[in-house]
């Protein structure tokens, strides 16, 4: 769904006049400059070729090294078309085995289908609710051919579905789908009574959070941010420290700054978050490199944003450049990417997956505003993550190679996400699972 580019002479008057309809304008990719990443090596989305010719993606420590180069990413230069919709017939001569089908349904290395669909069984843990509950699907007396097509490529019947075209992208072979269909045809009602309300995503308790994120005895990130103070005072090779220009310390001099980011910065011809800006502004002024996703970078980003805690997000998207960026960011939000052919919107809009369970995870709702607690402490990682690392994490299981964390594409997507935070108070560092 790479959208047609509008000539600039046409796009600008449209943007100036049609404020309310801005979002529906076609995004213009011609004015986006190239950007050289200033991220640490593991955050650049590089792919290297091993001596045997195998390609390996460079990601953070402990993340998969799988290369998903076959599939479309968020890169604006990636103009590959949509994955073609495929009509498929059941292969002849394969006898469906419900037992094999159930194992495939649950297999974490594939779907797992249980991430979105509930089926009976105490071993189904944890099931999601993004897709329909399939506990009694066989009672609907759907044909095998229909179910096969639904798994292979459901877009034939539902063009706007959130479900990946499992067969069309090659995650499941046709034979495997026959087994899955055979399993689904065994799911006759009534569903067995639930022993544990947490098994069923409809009755499962919603997570309650981790308490006060600004309490230093509760959120280790608050203590870690104190390391920014010596950084703030340290003179770099250029003979200057942050403190030399920004007088009064970060708390006073940075007050309210974070409420205005992400924003379009004419001197760099691009949208930048605080994090992006620090990677160029810090080295330019002090001479000390501050690569994106380095510990020093995140610490400083947290410290700068903490100075705006409690203040409402107030980004200004009125300039033509910012509006064009916002249009591109919104297009990215709805762009289908990766092996799973998902869009952000599939999981994070209330019309689709937001506030539902994906496995055991409750999916965030974009309209609540998802950015104002970043960088955030992740309790399961015991690390501080900024918005970009969170995006890269989100995109990896979708079967997609990531972009550099400071890329323009991510910045404009973040700009779009931040429009939903406007008027709501910043609270950094957040604390999340």
């Amino acid at each position, binding site marked *: 769904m790479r959208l047609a580019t509008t000539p600039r002479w046409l796009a600008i008057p449209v943007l100036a006049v049609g404020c309310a309809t801005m979002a529906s304008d076609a995004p213009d990719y011609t004015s986006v400059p190239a950007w050289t990443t200033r991220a640490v090596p593991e955050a650049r989305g590089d792919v290297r070729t091993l001596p045997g010719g195998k390609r390996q993606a460079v990601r953070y420590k402990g993340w998969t090294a799988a290369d998903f180069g076959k599939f479309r990413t968020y890169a604006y230069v990636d103009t590959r078309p949509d994955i073609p919709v495929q009509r498929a017939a059941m292969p002849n001569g394969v006898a469906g085995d419900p037992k094999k089908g159930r194992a495939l349904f649950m297999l974490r290395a594939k779907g797992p289908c249980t991430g979105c669909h509930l089926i009976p069984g105490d071993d189904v843990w944890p099931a999601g609710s993004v897709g329909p509950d399939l506990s009694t699907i066989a009672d609907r007396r759907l044909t095998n051919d229909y179910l096969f097509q639904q798994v292979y490529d459901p877009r034939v019947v539902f063009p706007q579905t959130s479900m990946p075209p499992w067969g069309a992208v090659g995650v499941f072979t046709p034979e495997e789908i026959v087994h899955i269909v055979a399993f689904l045809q065994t799911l006759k009602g009534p569903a067995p009574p639930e022993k544990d309300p947490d098994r069923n995503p409809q009755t499962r308790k919603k997570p309650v959070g981790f308490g006060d994120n600004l*309490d*230093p*005895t*509760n959120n*280790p990130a*608050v*203590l*870690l941010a*104190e*390391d920014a103070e010596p950084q703030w005072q340290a003179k770099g090779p250029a003979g200057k420290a942050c403190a030399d220009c920004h007088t009064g310390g970060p708390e006073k001099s940075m007050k309210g700054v974070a409420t205005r980011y992400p924003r379009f910065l004419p001197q760099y011809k691009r949208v930048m978050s605080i994090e992006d800006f620090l990677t160029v502004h810090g080295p330019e002024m002090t001479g000390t490199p501050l690569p994106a996703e380095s510990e020093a970078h995140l610490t400083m980003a947290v410290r700068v944003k903490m100075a705006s805690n409690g203040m409402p997000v107030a980004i200004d998207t009125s300039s033509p450049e910012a509006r064009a960026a916002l249009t591109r960011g919104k297009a990215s939000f709805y762009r289908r990417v990766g092996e799973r052919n998902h869009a952000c919107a599939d999981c994070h809009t209330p019309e689709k997956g937001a506030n539902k369970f994906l496995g055991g995870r409750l999916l965030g709702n974009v309209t609540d505003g998802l950015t104002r607690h970043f960088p955030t402490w992740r309790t399961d990682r*015991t690390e501080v993550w900024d918005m970009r690392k969170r995006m890269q994490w989100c995109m990896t299981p979708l079967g997609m190679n990531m972009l550099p964390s400071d890329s323009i594409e991510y910045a404009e997507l973040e700009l779009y996400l931040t429009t939903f935070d406007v008027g709501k108070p910043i609270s950094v560092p957040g604390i999340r699972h």
Partner: protein
Amino acid sequence: MSDIGKVRLRIPSSIKAGDVVRVRSLIIHPMERIERDAQGKIIDKKYNYITKVTVTYLGKAVVSFDTTQSVSENPFFSFAFRATDPGPLKVLFTDTTGGRYEGTADIKFS
């Protein structure tokens, strides 16, 4: 980890003499876990983790905890004591490398 040993204590903002006061404390510490080699054998080395937490109030030990590797990274401890007199409350963390990290809260009555 450069920031090992940062300690933060939190006490209620208003305390009256004789109150039972709940103290929250957090320390930045890696609390190294047992590592195993490819064969699954425990690697024998000196792991760095906190073994003792001692709380002192008005110069007197009020409570101490013996801790092991099964306590999480950046551990959180909470405990209660009776505030009888104004004075310092100290929490001292000792780890296996001999590191001693102390946090102090000043108990004042309002």
